[in-house]
Each structure stands twice: as structure tokens, then as C-alpha cells.
């Protein structure tokens, strides 16, 4: 694409540096507040967090000295932390697959010029406007694990429809409980993924489809060889956005299950528990691990985006 817009390079340059005579002074002054604020409140605090995580500081008193990587070693030998990492992995996988499939399906349906498109678009997108805490309160009731006579929410619905075999303990199941938390998350974010895909579909010029049809491509071939390749950057963005949201999951769990509930433990809730009890070193270590996990997902994406922009 870059070859089609050579004109930008030839645009006559403005005279340099009206303010202060030097070309770099004004821009540097402009970004300086942001650099300072981000430097202190983001990178400074990340550094401070890592520093805390290396201390022997397990109560509200001051640090008892340098502990090296011991806090991390303790965490990775703690069954409960491994369990919460496993929960996080299960949750993220379910959340990603769920939102991508549903989001793509809806976008595909709407893209085919279904009737009432704008209405459906609004309906699907709407849950995103609700905060996780607010929807969590509602889903807490919907996902109530009482069965039989005392059932409420979805279990009650299943009971009324004589689908009693579908009644289940939802998020209180030790092995799969965390997947129940993914249900409201999928409900909430699928519409957003749909909007991303829809924008992707709309961004593909009609000429490409026409050209493919002229060449005798079947509908499947059209999707497989023309549309999907064009959508892959959108899918990547969706994975990154949903993935990093998923890794940070906290509010939804706090609203549905509360912080001490065992079956829905994830690193973020454990971090909160450790912080509240005054075990700052352990809490900071969990925070650092979360940061690293999110960075593994995001940094390659940022690097590739940066490279693409450089190429333009």
C-alpha cells in the first residue's frame, strides 16, 4: 500500500521551529508532561513493584531484607497458585474461543445484509456498555448453584423447561467452575468482537469480491482465499484485546463469587487477598507474574505493529 501514496514525502516541509528556534523544543515540551507522568506512575511503579516482590516483606511492617527470587519460588511450588494459573488459562481459552466464534458468526450474518442490521448490531454491542461489576451482580443470580426446589436463575429456567439434567453447580464446581465465569464475559464482549469483524468486512473493497466471482470462485473459495486473509489482522487485534482483558479478570469474579471462593481463584484475586492481609512481597510477586504473562501476549503484537508503521 505504501507505494500508492508517495505524495506525502514530497509535500513541502514547513519552516523549522517557530517556537524557540530549535525544531525539537516544542515537540519535546509538548510530550514532556506525558513522559514524566507515565515514567513515574507506570514504569516507576512497575520498577517499585518488582523491587517489592524481591523483598522479605510478609506483613505490614517494613522489609526484613532482600529475599531474591524466593517469593517466586514459593508461588510456583504452591498448589493453590498453580490451580489459579490453570484457572486463568482455562478461562482465557474459553473466553477467546467463545467471543471469536460468536463475534465472527454475528458479523458474518450482519454482513450478509440481514434485515434489521442496525438493530441487531446495537443489541449485540449493548452488553459492552455495562460494567463487569454491574453485570456480575446479575449473573451472580443467574448462575446460582441451587438445584431442585430452591433453584433460581438459569437452573430455575432449566427446571421449568423440564431440562433438569442441565441444572449444574456452575462456578462452584472444583474442576470446571471457572468456565461459568467465562459465560458472562463472552456475553459481554462478543458484540465488541462482532463490531471489529464487521469493520473488517466493510473494509474489504467490493471490487475484490466481484473480481473473485468473475474468476469463478465459489462462495467458500471466496471466503477462504479472499476475505479471510483480509480479516486476519482484525482477528489478531481481537485476540490481543480479548486476551489481555481476560488475563486481568478480577471484577467479574469479585462480583459473582467473591474474593475467598476457592473454585474461581485466579492470580488477580490472589494478589488482592495477599495485599489485603499485608503480605506485600507475595502480592507484588503475583502482580509481576501477571505483568509478564500479559507482556508475552502484547509485546510481540506491539513490535509487529511498530514495524508495520515504520514500513509505511
Amino acid at each position, binding site marked *: 500500500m505504501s507505494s500508492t501514496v508517495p505524495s506525502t514525502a514530497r509535500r513541502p516541509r514547513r519552516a523549522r521551529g517557530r*517556537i524557540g528556534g530549535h525544531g525539537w523544543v*516544542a515537540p519535546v515540551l509538548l510530550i514532556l508532561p506525558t513522559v514524566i507522568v507515565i515514567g513515574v506512575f507506570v514504569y516507576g511503579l512497575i520498577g517499585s513493584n518488582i523491587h517489592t516482590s524481591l523483598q522479605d516483606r510478609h*506483613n505490614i*511492617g517494613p522489609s526484613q531484607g532482600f529475599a531474591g527470587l524466593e517469593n517466586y519460588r514459593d508461588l510456583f511450588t504452591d498448589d493453590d497458585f498453580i490451580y489459579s494459573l490453570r484457572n486463568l488459562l482455562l478461562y482465557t481459552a474459553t473466553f477467546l474461543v467463545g467471543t471469536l466464534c460468536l463475534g465472527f458468526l454475528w458479523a458474518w450474518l450482519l454482513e450478509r445484509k440481514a434485515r434489521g442490521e442496525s438493530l441487531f448490531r446495537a443489541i449485540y454491542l449493548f452488553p459492552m456498555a455495562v460494567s463487569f461489576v454491574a453485570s456480575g451482580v446479575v449473573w451472580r443470580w443467574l448462575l446460582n448453584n441451587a438445584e431442585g426446589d430452591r433453584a433460581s436463575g438459569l437452573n430455575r429456567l432449566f427446571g421449568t423447561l423440564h431440562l433438569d439434567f442441565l441444572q449444574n*453447580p456452575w462456578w462452584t464446581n472444583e474442576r470446571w467452575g471457572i468456565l461459568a465465569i467465562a459465560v458472562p464475559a463472552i456475553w459481554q464482549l462478543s458484540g465488541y468482537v462482532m463490531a471489529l469483524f464487521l469493520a473488517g468486512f466493510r473494509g474489504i473493497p467490493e471490487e475484490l469480491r466481484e473480481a473473485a466471482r468473475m474468476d469463478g470462485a465459489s462462495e467458500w473459495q471466496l471466503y477462504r482465499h479472499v476475505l479471510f486473509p483480509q480479516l486476519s489482522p482484525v482477528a489478531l487485534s481481537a485476540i490481543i484485546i480479548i486476551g489481555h482483558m481476560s488475563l486481568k479478570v478480577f471484577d467479574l469474579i469479585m462480583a459473582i463469587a467473591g474474593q475467598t471462593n476457592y473454585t474461581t481463584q485466579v492470580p488477580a484475586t490472589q494478589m488482592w487477598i495477599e495485599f489485603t492481609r*499485608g503480605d506485600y512481597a507475595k502480592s507484588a510477586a503475583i502482580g509481576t507474574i501477571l505483568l509478564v504473562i500479559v507482556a508475552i501476549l502484547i509485546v510481540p503484537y506491539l513490535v509487529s505493529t511498530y514495524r508495520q508503521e515504520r514500513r509505511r
Partner: protein
Amino acid sequence: MNATRKALAAGLAALSLLAVSACGGESESGSTDEVEVFTWWAEGSEKAGLDALVKVFDEQNPDLKFVNGAVAGGAGSDAKNVLQSRLQNGEPPATFQAHAGAELTDYINAGQIEDLTDLYEEKGWNERFPEGLLERLKQDGGIYSVPSNIHRANVMWANPAVLKKAGIEANKTYDSLDAWIADLKAIKAKGIIPLSIATDWTQVHLLETVLLADLGAEAYNGLWDGTTDWGGSEVKAALEDYSTLLSLTNTDRQGLDWPDATQLVIDGQAAYNVMGDWAEAAFQEQKKKLNTDYTAVPVPGTEGVFDFLADSFTMPVDGPNAAGTEAWLETIASDEGQVAFNKAKGSIPASTTADTADFGEYQQTAIKSWSEDEIVSSLAHGAATSVNWLTDITAAVAKFGSNNDVAELQEGLVEAAEDNKPE
């Protein structure tokens, strides 16, 4: 370029605003007639209690000004986080609320609160509070807080109508958990929830009363000072009982909090509920009458033992207004303060000299027990252990709630004791 300059100006203005507001924050704590009282009593009967207390304080100290530092939310955990950051930044309030007893350990170890032993001597408070309580409050030989109210944790609430339906006498008393469990099973056979329970901390609450019932007061106290073995067979037997009791509760416990569980008894859907005596307020609000609509007796096997928890107030080190703090503590310890606060909150006075003639019917029974019974410290409410220990126990109990593995629960409790036992 004009736009750039405007943007610059706007940016500078925003920055300077920040700076101004930062300065504003500092100049607040200057005057010395202000007494900032930090609590998590922000609503309901707790707020009413605090208001009543402030009225007494204003009468006793017309020249001091009460400043409400209440932080709402999270049953106190939000307030504790805010408080901790203030203490660490050297900006303590004049006084703050904390559960009396071992929950203060961390503050003491961090050197954040003052020893009040001399103040107790000087003001004669040692004679006002029962000896058993003072004994429970002592840490490393010192007393670090002044209790404002007492709650009892080992109370069993029952609905007589439901019991009748299940063919059980309404006022039947049990001298052990085993006898009670046999009846609970009979109730379950009738398709009624025998025992209602809610989320994790209420399960810890139930566990503590089971430990107390099976081990007896002395061995129960030994759990906290290391003389009772957490890994022993007595504790194992108690945990088996706890496991049995948990199997006789409502299955949707994780989704409920204590008012929901108590409501099950009020509504006649469950026969029994074990909860602290703050549940009394729930029965009163719904105009239920003691001994006709509901009964409240000690948990089977804990007769003659008062499993106490208390809120209390402290004196932070390097507080902004030491005289003001002392005045507040004096109001807390005074009979007027104790009566006004506890009547509004629904608890009972910690001091035995307070005039309690016009307290409610349930409170009267609690007041009587308070002066006669053996006093032990509640686990679930911060009197028996440090915050760290309780957090570990809660985690073990929460895990047990999902996997029902008694051996693993005991292992978790042993580990928690090893990590947190006072030396």
C-alpha cells in the same frame, strides 16, 4: 501555531491544578481540636451506633470536634487497606476501629499503635471490664485497645415452627453436637434444610463453634497459643463433625451472605442457623418475637462459654492529637458511651458497670452470660488470631467447601498454624 500554544497553556493549567490540589491535602490536619475517628461503620445499625457515640462524645468534650473518617465497603477490608497506607505514610487518624484481640498483632509488631496499659491503670478501666476479657485482650503483656461493644459468636438460631413440622420439640436442648446432628439428619429426611449457611467466612464461623463444642474451651484456647495440636485426633474428630454438618446445609451456600442464610430460618425454609448475635437485628427488623417466632441459644456443646468478638479503638503512634484520642477512648470506655452505642447497634456493653436495664430481651440473656460464662476468643472475627492466620484458615476452609477432603483440610490448618503461630 496558535493552537499549539493554547494546548500548551491548557496542559500547564491542568498540571498546576494538580499541584494546587496536592497542597490542599496537606494543610488539613493542622488544627488540634479535631479528632478524626476512622471506622468502617458507614451504614445501618453500625452508623446509628456511631452517631449515638458521637452525641455522647460531643456532650463530654464540647471543645473538641469529631471528624468522621469512615470508609465504606468490603466489610472493613477496604477501610483496612486505606488505613494501612495512611499509617505507612505517617498520617494516622486520631484513632481507628479494629477487632479487639489478636487481629491487632500486625499493628503492634509494626509499631503502629501505643500500649494502653498505663492508661487503663490511670483511668481505672481494669475494674470496669471483666477479667476474662482483659486476659483475652492482652498481647505480650500489654493492652492495645479499648473495646466498645461485645458480640457473641456461638449462637444457634432456630425456627420453632419448622422444628414442629419435623417432629422435634421447640425448646429441645442438646448437650453435644452428636445429639444435634442426629436431629438434623431427621430434619433433612423431611425435605427441609436442617442448617443454613452462607459464603466462606460463615463456614469459618461454623467451624470455630464446632471446634469449641468438641474440644471444650480450654483446648480451644490452646489452638491459638500452641498447646493444642492441630494435627491431633481431637481436632480430626471435630473436623469430621464439621464435614457432617456442612453436608446438612443448603447447597447454594457460596452464593449467599449471612443475612440470606439467616433469612432462610426466618422464612421457615431452614431449621437452624449458626451466626453471631448481630443476626438478632434481622429478627427484630421483621418483628419476630424471641421464644415464639425464633429461639436463640448457645450452639450445642458450648453451653457456659461465651465466644466473644469486639470492636475496639486504638491510639496510633504519633497521632495528630493525643489529647483528642484520649478523650475519644474515654468516651468509649464510659458507661454513657457503652450504653448509647450498644443500644443503637444491637450489641452489648463490654463494661460490666453499664446500666443495661432497658436493653432488649435477647441482649439481656447475652449480658447475663457475659458476666457469668467463660470467655473465649472468636476465630472468624479477629479476636483469636492475626489477620494472616485467619486468611490462611479461610483459604483452607474455602477449599474444603469445594472438595470435601477432611485430611486436606486438617493439613491446611496445621500448615496455617505452623506459619503463623506466635512464638
